[in-house]
């Protein structure tokens, strides 16, 4: 532990926490605070510089950029939350079953995981969109299908480790049913590291959503979404760089904030990692 580094580190965690909370609030309540309709086209006021009416200016169709950014938080982070919920549900149930039951069921489920682990997100997304068409639902499905197996693997590993604890044996000897043992003794040990991992992955998954939408595979214009906004602004990059910079900044800040937060959570859970980094 380096005493000198500690305050700076905790300050950066506090900032990251505030930013992340802000993004989540915007995603939840953004529609209440948007200054303008994010879809309202106003060709008379295209490419306006930041003014009091349009704090971040307007885009090539005269839409208010700040409103679109706020509405985009809901699209991007909202779909990330859906992805995470599905990934966690799949990972916990498959990994939990695999680890608790073991034997042949474990072997079959883990081979299934191996198959999904070999599929890169972008390839699967391209395949699904080719087969089923573009759209947010397909993008979400592709990200879930290419990520759940990681979670299942990690959950299984944690379950196997926790299963060797004496108190799990004691509960087994006392005749507790397997489901009760899982809920009472195993799950509490699985949830904290999983929460840290999920927080770390929010940024990563936001990049997937925005990236696929930027390529035109996910959310379709005019729906406000950060990746879509960058794609919209691409043509005007040399003349109006701010149009690219605003959504880019939003993505960067969101990814950084959630990464820092996830890092901090993981450090709290595993102090040895912090000690290792100090060397």
């Amino acid at each position, binding site marked *: 532990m380096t005493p000198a580094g500690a305050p700076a580190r905790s300050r950066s965690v506090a900032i990251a926490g505030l930013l992340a909370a802000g993004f989540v609030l915007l995603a939840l309540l953004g529609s209440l605070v948007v200054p303008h309709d994010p879809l309202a086209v106003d060709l008379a006021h295209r490419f306006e510089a930041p003014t009091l009416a349009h704090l971040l200016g307007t885009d090539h169709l005269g839409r208010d950029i700040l409103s679109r950014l706020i509405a985009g938080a809901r699209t991007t982070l909202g779909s990330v939350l859906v992805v995470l919920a599905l990934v966690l549900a799949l990972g916990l149930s498959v990994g939990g079953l695999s680890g608790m039951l073991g034997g042949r069921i474990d072997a079959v489920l883990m081979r299934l995981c191996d198959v999904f682990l070999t599929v890169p997100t972008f390839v699967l997304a391209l395949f699904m969109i080719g087969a089923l068409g573009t759209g947010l639902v397909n993008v979400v499905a592709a990200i879930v299908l290419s990520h759940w197996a990681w979670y299942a693997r990690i959950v299984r590993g944690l379950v196997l480790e926790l299963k060797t604890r004496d108190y799990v044996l*004691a509960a087994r000897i006392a005749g507790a049913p397997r489901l009760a043992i899982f809920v009472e003794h195993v799950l509490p040990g699985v949830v904290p590291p999983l929460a840290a991992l999920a927080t770390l992955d929010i940024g990563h998954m936001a990049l997937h959503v925005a990236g696929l939408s930027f390529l035109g595979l996910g959310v379709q214009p005019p729906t406000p979404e950060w990746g879509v906004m960058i794609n919209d602004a691409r043509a005007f990059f040399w003349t109006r760089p701010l149009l690219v910079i605003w959504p880019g900044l939003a993505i960067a800040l969101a990814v950084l904030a959630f990464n820092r937060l996830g890092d901090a959570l993981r450090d709290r859970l595993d102090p040895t990692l912090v000690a290792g980094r100090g060397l």
Partner: protein
Amino acid sequence: MTVRTLRAGGLAVETWRATRRGREPVPLVRDASLDLRTGEVLALVGASGSGKSLACAALLDTLPPGTRRTGGRILLDGAETEPAALRGRAVASVLQAPRTAFNPLRTIDDHAGETLAVAGLRGGAGRAAMREALAAVGLGDDPRVPGLYPFQMSGGMLQRAMIALALLSRAPFLVADEPTTDLDLVAQARILDLLADLVRERSLGLLIVTHDLGVVARLADRVAVMAEGRIVETGAAKSIFARPSEPATQALLAAHQALHEVAPDGPPAVTDLLP
């Protein structure tokens, strides 16, 4: 009160060894039979590694990974029973290390809830049963105990709490694999006293695994001696001490005597500490 019996016949446990020609079974417990009746204490003794713990685990089918049961029948009151069905219902267990046998994130109350759920007791009846069980093991005076986390309790208290959980299950039989090994001498004597009282008052059938022949002399009605995975001698405690017929038994007795003769000023035997 009717006497209940638990009989394990021909228990066999093996592990595997990798050889050039594949896996080769290695027997760890061979044809071990144990006979328990309520109101009686059966001591299982034997050198370290002779298979005592595995024999107990085989009784309940809770063998460690890497081993498996290859034989044996369990008869509860004469009727063949699945080992898993005994757990918490016919047989309660006390483990060696109380510190690790409790989930560090759960209070004594939480652990009791788990046992009560197996026993099918809920609500007020469950709470009353728990108060009674804690009082029976001498933890009834402190009202904080149910809300304590394992790290807030001493090893002796935890071992008492584990015995309370065993009582809570209402199982007629109790398996205790070296229940006092991790405790200091005074706590050991108290726990053994408690077990002896409980066997007498509640007419439990106790299977106790121990290294200490002093414990055997004090508690046990009958003794089973294990050596190299087999039960080599069974009989009344008195007769086995008086006339050990097997080399394994003789060796155990000789070791015990040597220990207490070589160190006359050393720590007294457990039995000497007791009133």
